[in-house]
């Protein structure tokens, strides 16, 4: 399964040079089935490096599935999907090494503190302590928050911890599903700032969002998912 893992350059510096050759996301006529229901129905989408794409659409239109496909979390029934030049179907490990995905869940262990969560992920991906500290600082996680169990954090604090984990994992493609959900106004602004910073630092960001006026200011491009297919709606702003 993971046959290409060994030869793949894991350090993101290398993958950035790959990215400059090809589109970050290149999805063509993708069909993704949830059971027998086509959540994505021949969707086609290209995303270039450094874009901040906001994905809009009604509930059940296929936004989440589109993000999960880009992360290699759902199998492709038909069509092709390449992320950073790697085939999502056959070379998932290479895709995932570069992808940070934040869905409705945060992927954190509630019984561990925020700091323990961060250091677990840094152990697992082989990041250094300084990288962890930098990520925590960037997401505004104070010492007090870091030593609090994740189960006791607020929704916004959990989100920030999850984003810090993503930064520790050195993701170059950020896939965020409704990152603003459950946050108050300052929290939302914070997220927006973080996303702009990430793009400025060389990452590509795809955000699925309900909020039209917010995303209008955030996005470099807006697309809309309708009935499992992708419709470009807003141009470059």
């Amino acid at each position, binding site marked *: *399964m*993971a046959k290409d*893992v*060994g030869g793949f350059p*894991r350090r993101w510096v290398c993958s950035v040079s790959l990215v400059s050759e090809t589109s970050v996301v290149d999805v063509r006529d993708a069909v993704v089935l949830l059971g027998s229901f086509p959540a994505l129905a021949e969707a086609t989408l290209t995303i270039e490096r450094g874009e901040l794409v906001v994905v809009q659409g009604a509930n059940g239109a296929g936004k989440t599935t589109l993000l999960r496909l880009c*992360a*290699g*979390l759902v*199998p492709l029934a038909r069509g092709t999907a390449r992320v950073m030049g790697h085939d999502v179907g056959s070379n*998932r*490990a290479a895709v*995932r*090494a570069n*992808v*940070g*995905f934040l*869905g409705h*869940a*945060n*992927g*954190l*262990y*509630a*019984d*561990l503190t925020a700091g*323990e969560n961060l250091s*677990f*992920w840094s*152990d*697992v*991906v*082989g990041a250094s302590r300084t990288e962890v500290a930098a990520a925590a600082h960037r997401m505004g996680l104070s010492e007090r928050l870091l030593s609090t*169990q994740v189960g006791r954090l607020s929704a916004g604090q959990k989100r920030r911890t999850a984003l810090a*984990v993503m930064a520790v*994992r050195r993701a170059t493609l950020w896939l965020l599903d409704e990152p603003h959900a459950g946050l108050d106004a300052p929290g939302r602004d914070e997220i927006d700032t973080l996303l702009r910073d990430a793009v400025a630092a060389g990452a590509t960001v795809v955000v699925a969002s309900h909020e039209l006026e917010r995303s209008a200011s955030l996005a470099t491009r807006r697309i809309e998912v309708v009935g499992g297919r992708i419709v470009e709606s807003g141009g470059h702003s």
Partner: protein
Amino acid sequence: MSASRIVGVARAVASKDLRIEWRSRVMTNQVLPFAAIVMVLFAFALDNDGILQRVAPGLVWMATLFASLVVVQRSFAVESADSAIDALRLAGVPSQGVYLGKVAALVVQLVVCEAVLAALALILYRVNVDRHGAVLLVTTCILGSLGIAALAAVYGGLSVADRGRETLLPLLLLPALAPVLIGATRATESAFGSDGARAAEGWPWVGLLAVFGAIFLFGGTLGFGPLTDE
């Protein structure tokens, strides 16, 4: 994927799992009392010292088997509760490391469980263990736990990672663990001296446990990734 990286991931996963267990106290507050009450209830149900001493080894391992179902489900529920399993899949983490880490944490928890159960058997059922028997007992517990954990982590990953599949775990796991139940029970009988068994008679059974553990640890290391990562 280099071996040192796999070991590193395994260590991180195992210590993370054990820390979570330590903190949430599910083991001490729920699993152990459950296992203990099984032992006590059997004492009431059988109500005969002679029979209790004879069946004590089997009871210890039956209780361990049932406790293992709870422990395994818990081990993977921790991963799926906030979709950390997705994050693990996504992080490009070698699945072999995740598997070995999960197995290691499960082994530790199962050995703790067995130690308590064996102690209960000694007290409640008045079983005696000499020094040779104690060595045999400890070896049996470790290798028996390894066999259970090696298989349970694979089937647990398959059946608990997604909701609505929990009933699959006992169906897949329990028949496959028959050799462990048989081997560990016989070895423990020898250690306890039940039915006049001598400790030396237990070692062939320990061999069976070792073979079982080795085979499925190897198979699980290969199969866990493809099986759980869909």
